[in-house]
Each structure stands twice: as structure tokens, then as C-alpha cells.
């Protein structure tokens, strides 16, 4: 027989106590009616699960930290950040969001940007195309209206995040990194110079300009020598064409 519940939603208070005790064992050491050994099964399962997602998603960032710091970071994330996504692959995005406001003072100043860079690889790997545009294999600089393939992204970072490792701390320096997924569905990246990064931005939004027109526009905007920009830009575009990163736009 069931007993009468004095509070019909009393079970929700029990759920709150139980989830608090899993997230924050120090803050909520005891749960009424649950012995410590059984509570610790839940605490360990949950923590290890979250830690697995974070260390799997951000191996470089985690390697920069001591074991104690890693544990503290994951615990702080688990306690302070309310995850809204039901998707496991989005736990990385939830973690990035958390890092933006993270107050832990042992994190390097470039922690967020490094984490963002690590996340880009996952993002590019699982990104779902919205169209099936094929890249071009030949390029007429004067005639072709071109754009970037859908699976290419360029991001500016304040640090050379792609070079950071446990043996290589870094100094601040603007870095433009292009991540793309090739036709074999493999994720690659290329470091870009400022001109290439600008070219990337122009190509992404391009609707009606030829390659040469884009390059001449950039030169005019930047008050640079037109011939030099066209010559240098054509070389970059040829490389991107060879990497199958360019698509044809129709006028």
C-alpha cells in the first residue's frame, strides 16, 4: 500500500536534494535516507561521465592543468553551469559557455580561446551540411563567381592556439585559423595571413563578384597595390581550389 504524501510534489524536493548531492558532494554531503556508499556510486558515475566528455573534447587544455586542477575545473563546471542541451556532443559547447564566466584563477589567460579552437575540430567533424554543393577543380579568375564550400570556417584568435601544448606556452599574437572538412570528410586546418583571412570573409558572403573583382576590392579598401594583391590573392585562391574549398556561384 502506498502511504499518503503530505506534499504532492514533495518528490521534486527529494529530486533537488539528490541532484544537489551528486553535483556538489562537499556542499551537500548527506541525503536523507541514502547511505553514503550508495550516494558515492552516483557521485562517481556522474562525475566520471562529465569528466570523460571534457577531457575527450579538450585534451590540450586539460593537459596544461595538474590532475587536481582538472578535477576542480570539471567539478566547478558541473556545479555552476546549467546545461540546456540534451545532446551529448553539445556538452563541449556548454563547457565553452561556462569558460566565458569561469572564475578559477589557475586557468591560463588563453583557456577560452584554446578551448574554442579544440571545439572547432569537433564542430567541423560532425557539422551537418545544408546543401550538397560540389567544389570546383578549375578556376577562371576573371570569369568565375566563387564562394567557399559550406564546411570551411575561419576564426581569429588572440593567441596562436594551434601551437599551444604542454611544452609550448604562448605569447599573445593574432592568429587566423581556417578549419575545413575535405571531400573525404576529414577535418584539416590551415593558418591564414591577414590577407587570406580577409579574402575568406569576402568569399563567404560573395554573391556576384569574380575572383579578380574581389581581390581588387580588397586592395582598394586596404589602400594596397592592386597588382600585388591580385597576384598574391590568385596564388591563395589556386591553393584553395586545389584543396577543393571553392564553389561556383551562379549569377
Amino acid at each position: 500500500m502506498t502511504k499518503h504524501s503530505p506534499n504532492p510534489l514533495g518528490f521534486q524536493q527529494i529530486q533537488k536534494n539528490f541532484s544537489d548531492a551528486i553535483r556538489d558532494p562537499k556542499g551537500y554531503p548527506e541525503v536523507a535516507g541514502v547511505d553514503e556508499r550508495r550516494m558515492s556510486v552516483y557521485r562517481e558515475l556522474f562525475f566520471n561521465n562529465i569528466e570523460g566528455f571534457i577531457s575527450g573534447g579538450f585534451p590540450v587544455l586539460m593537459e596544461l592543468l595538474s590532475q587536481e586542477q582538472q578535477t576542480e575545473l570539471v567539478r566547478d563546471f558541473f556545479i555552476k553551469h546549467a546545461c540546456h542541451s540534451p545532446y551529448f556532443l553539445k556538452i563541449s559547447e556548454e563547457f565553452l559557455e561556462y569558460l566565458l564566466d569561469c572564475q578559477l584563477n589557475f586557468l591560463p589567460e588563453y583557456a577560452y580561446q584554446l578551448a574554442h579552437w579544440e571545439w572547432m575540430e569537433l564542430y567541423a567533424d560532425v557539422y551537418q551540411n545544408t546543401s550538397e554543393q560540389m567544389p570546383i577543380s578549375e578556376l577562371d579568375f576573371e570569369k568565375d563567381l566563387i564562394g567557399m564550400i559550406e564546411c570551411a570556417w575561419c576564426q581569429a584568435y588572440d593567441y596562436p592556439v594551434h601551437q599551444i601544448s604542454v611544452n609550448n606556452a604562448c605569447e599573445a599574437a593574432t592568429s587566423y585559423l581556417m578549419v575545413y572538412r575535405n571531400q573525404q570528410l576529414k577535418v584539416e586546418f590551415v593558418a591564414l595571413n591577414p590577407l587570406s583571412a580577409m579574402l575568406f570573409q569576402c568569399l563567404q558572403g560573395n554573391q556576384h563578384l569574380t575572383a579578380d573583382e574581389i581581390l581588387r576590392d580588397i586592395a582598394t579598401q586596404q589602400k594596397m597595390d592592386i597588382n600585388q594583391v591580385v597576384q598574391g590573392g590568385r596564388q591563395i585562391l589556386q591553393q584553395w581550389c586545389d584543396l577543393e574549398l571553392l564553389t561556383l556561384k551562379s549569377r
Partner: protein
Amino acid sequence: MALQGSGLGLRRGMMEDLAGLSNQDVDFLEVAPENWIGVGGRLGKAFREFTERFPFACHGLSLSIGSSDKLDVSFVKDVKGFLDEHQIDIYSEHLSYCSHDGHMYDLMPIPFTLPAAKYVADRIAQVQETLQRPLIMENVSTYASPGQEMSELDFLLEVVERADCKILLDVNNVYVNSINHGFDARHYIQSIPSKYIEYLHIAGHYDEAPDLLVDTHGASIKSPVWDLLQLSYEVHGVLPTLLERDFNFPPLNELMSEVNQIKQFQQEASRDQALA
């Protein structure tokens, strides 16, 4: 399409190994929609190669049917879109909750109380309406029973009768809980009306202590759990049964020998029932 025969939970870590399987080897596969919704690239391509060759069931993880958090209706709609896209009719979830003020990505025990059963049943009805499919609720393994006012079995039946939903009976979870909470596993299985059971799960567990088993899905199936599978066939008839293995993947032949063991028990039970 209804499931039949023996199935295997498809995990990313075993996809390469399973690429050569045909539906002679395994009758159906199962995935968590949360791991595949919106996934493109090499993983999305590999997944599609499987859905084109095998019947599929979906076994969700993040619905959080027992949670105090608001039901995520847009997520349920995404699940429906995914099921429709891949023509999957079977969607099961855990009679559990995995969020409270945000997702926690693992399963917690719903307090077994009558108000909780009513609350969960209402939410199941809401999900079934959106999905346009029955929601199939799985009995979950638990290591504690906070706020318990009724037995796990009574709670399960209360929810299922109120919501008019189906049950995914996980025989390993019945065994794990029978040890963890000291009840009779055979009685539990015998007490569920057959009409509610849609399919079965079986898996391995880890013995943390004589009175505390952990449902890891990381080891081979133990013999008392095989016994409960045979009992389930005896009591409820031969039901589609899926093997779950989530990590510590053994060589493919070892995994397939467990699938084949399921097949063998199914054949034996069919024969016995035909003779009876």
C-alpha cells in the same frame, strides 16, 4: 515495423567492427537518438550505411521523463523528425530523470511515490501525442531509493497503466536492483502483464560488493541474468531482445557469441512453447 529476433546496441566505438555484419548475424540495431540527431560528416555517413541495411530501434537518454524541469518539447519534436527520417517506429526511454535545473547526462532514481507516478504518466502522454508513437519505458538500475513510498514494481505498473504506454524490460536491471534493494527478481518479471512488454534488454554488470551491483554495460552477461532472460521468454513468450555493450568492447566474435546465445534461447523457448 515491429522488431523481431536479437539485436545489438550500436555504439560509435564498434562501428568499424560491425561494418561487415549482415542481418543474418543480427536482426536489428539500436542507437540513442541524442548521439545522432544533427550529426553529419563521416559519422553521419557511417550511420546512414547502417540504417540502410538494418531495422533500427531508438533508445533515448535525455528525455528526462521524471524531471522537475519542463519537458523539452522542441527536443521531442527533433526526436520525432529523426525517427521519421530514418523510418524508425520503436522509441524507448528510461523511467528515470537526468536533469534538475539543467542536464546531468546520467540517470537518477525517481522517488517511488504515487504523485510522482501521476506526474510521470502525464508527461508520457504528452510525449506520445507529439511523437505519434507509443513511448516505451525501461525499468532502470538504481543504487538508492530516495523518498520511496511504494515498490519499484508497483511504481512501474502504476505509471504504465496510467499512461497506457509500453515497457522495455531490462532483465539485467531487474537483477541488479533485486540485489541492490533485496527483492525477488523472478516475482518482478512474473508480475508484469505480458501485454505491456514490447522488447527486452540484456547486458553485463559490475559487482561492486555482494549487496551492490553497478549496471556498467562493460562486461559479459552473468549467468543469473541469462536465467532471467529464459524466465521472461517462458512467462511472456519470445520477445525481441537486444544486447547492450557500452565500453570495454570485446572482439567481435565474443560480442556475437552473446547475440547468438540470445538467438539460441529464443529458439529453445519457441520450441518449448510450440510443444506445450
